[in-house]
C-alpha cells in the first residue's frame, strides 16, 4: 500500500515525509497491546461475573443469561459516555474498550449526544449510527456470507 501511495508523491514530498516521520513519536504497539489486553480482559471478566450472578441468583440459564449481561454492560457504557468519562478511559485503554460491546454502545451514545443540538429527527436519529452504521452493515453482511458457506457445506454432506 505504501508503495502505491508513494507513486503519487513527488520526490520532494517523499523526502519530506521521511524527514517528518523520523521526528514523529510512534504509538507504542506493545504498551498499547498490553493496556488493551488488561482493560478488555477486565471488561470481559466483569461480564463473566455478571453472567454467573444472573445464573446463580436469578432464573437464567447459561444461554439466556447473555441478554441481561449485555444489557447491563451497555447501560454502564452509555452512562459513562454521558458523564464524559468513557473517552478518557478509552484514550488509555485503546482497543480494550472499543472491541467489547461497550465500545459499540459508546459509538451510538456519543453520536446521539453530539447531535442532540440539531433536534431529534435530523440530529439524534440521523446521526446515531454515524460510526456504528458500518459495523452493523458489514457485520450483517459478513454473517450472511458465513451462513451461506455453512449451508452450502451442509448441503454437500459436510459437517
Amino acid at each position, binding site marked *: 500500500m505504501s508503495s502505491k501511495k508513494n507513486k503519487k508523491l513527488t520526490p520532494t514530498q517523499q523526502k519530506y515525509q521521511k524527514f517528518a516521520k523520523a521526528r514523529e513519536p510512534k504509538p507504542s504497539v506493545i504498551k498499547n497491546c498490553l493496556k488493551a489486553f488488561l482493560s478488555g480482559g477486565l471488561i470481559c471478566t466483569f461480564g463473566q461475573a455478571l453472567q454467573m450472578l444472573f445464573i446463580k441468583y436469578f432464573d437464567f440459564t447459561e444461554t439466556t443469561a447473555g441478554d441481561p449481561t449485555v444489557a447491563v454492560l451497555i447501560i454502564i457504557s452509555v452512562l459513562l459516555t454521558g458523564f464524559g468519562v468513557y473517552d478518557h478511559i478509552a*484514550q488509555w485503554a485503546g482497543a480494550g474498550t472499543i472491541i467489547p460491546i461497550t*465500545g459499540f454502545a459508546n459509538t451510538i451514545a456519543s453520536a446521539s449526544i453530539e447531535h442532540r*443540538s*440539531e433536534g431529534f429527527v435530523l440530529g439524534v436519529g440521523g446521526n446515531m449510527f454515524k460510526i456504528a452504521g458500518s459495523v452493523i452493515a458489514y457485520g450483517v453482511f459478513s454473517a450472511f456470507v458465513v451462513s451461506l458457506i455453512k449451508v452450502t457445506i451442509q448441503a454437500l454432506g459436510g459437517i
Partner: protein
Amino acid sequence: MKKGHQSWIFNSKPIIISSAAVGGPFEAQGAIAEDFDMLHQDIWLGQDSYEKAEKKLLEQACEISIQKANLRKEDIEFFISGDLMNQIISSSFTARTLGAPYLGIFGACSSSMEGLALGSLLIDSKSANYVLAGASSHNAAVEKQFRYPTEYGSQKPPTAQWSVTGAGTALLSQKGTGPRVTSATIGRVIDMGISDPFNMGSAMAPAAVDTIEAHFRDLNIEPSYYDLIATGDLGRIGHQIAVDLLTEHGINIPKNIFTDCGLLIYKKEQPVIAGGSGCGCSATVTYGHLLNRMKKGEFKKILIVATGALQSPLSYQQKESIPCIAHGVSIEMIESEVL
C-alpha cells in the same frame, strides 16, 4: 507597499489600539490563563449548541476590545474574521451582531494573521480608521465537524493536537498608542502529501518554514531582528520539524526566540498530546499573552506565523492530502511607546 515577492511593508505602521482574548475552561487551567480577558467555566457558555458557544466567544472578544478602546461598535468600519466552522458561521453570525461592514475569510487556523494582515492593509491604505480583526475556534465544535463525536472513545495517536476553545480580536487604528503592525508575508499553499488529520503539525510545518524564509528574503533581514518568532499551532512535533527544516535550509533561529502558540497555551501536565491547535490558538496567544508581554517591555519586535490546514472532512475521506498555508505578521513596539 509590496516588498519582495509576497510581503507588504506598512509604512504608516497601523496601531493595535486594543485587543482581547476569551477562553474556555481548559484554557483557564492553562499556562497563560492570566492573559485572557475573560474565561468561561462552561464549554457551552450557557448556549444550547457548541456552535452557538463559539459565536458567543467571538462576540465577547469583539465587545471587550471595542470597550477597551473606548469606542462604540458603530465606530468599527470593517470587521475581518475567520473560523473553522463550515461556511465560517461563527464569524458571519458575529458580524450580524456587530452590524459592521464585514469581510469573512477562511485560512483555517491561519485566519488570525490573515485577518490582521488584511486589516493592516486597509488602515495603511487609509481605507479605514478602525478595523477589527478576529478569529475563533471551539474544541467540541471542531471535533464534531472534523473528527469524531466528543465523547467517542477512540485512542488518539501521539501526534494529535487539542483544539483551543477561544477567540481573539485586535482593533487596528491609524492613530493611538500600542504595538504596531509593520509588515506581513502572505503564504503560499504548500502540500507535502501528508493526509493524516491527526498529524497536523507535520503537515503544516513546511508551510510555516516557507513563509518564514520568504519573510526574511523579502524584507532582507535576519532572524535576530526579532525578539520572538512564534508559529501558530504546529505543536510539539511540528515545531521540532520546523526547527530542523529551517536549519537544513540555512536559517538559524536562536532556540530561545523560536516558539509555537500551541506550546505556550497549555501546561505540560494537561492532556493535550502534542499541543494546542485551532484558529483560537494563535489568536488568543497573540492578542492576549504576547501583546501583554510586549506592553510590559519584554519584547520589542515579534513575528507571528499562523499556520493553517486547508482540508475539509470530505476531502480527507476522499483520500486527498492536506494543503497547508502560513501567514506571517510582524508586530513592533516603537521605542517611545514602551511604558
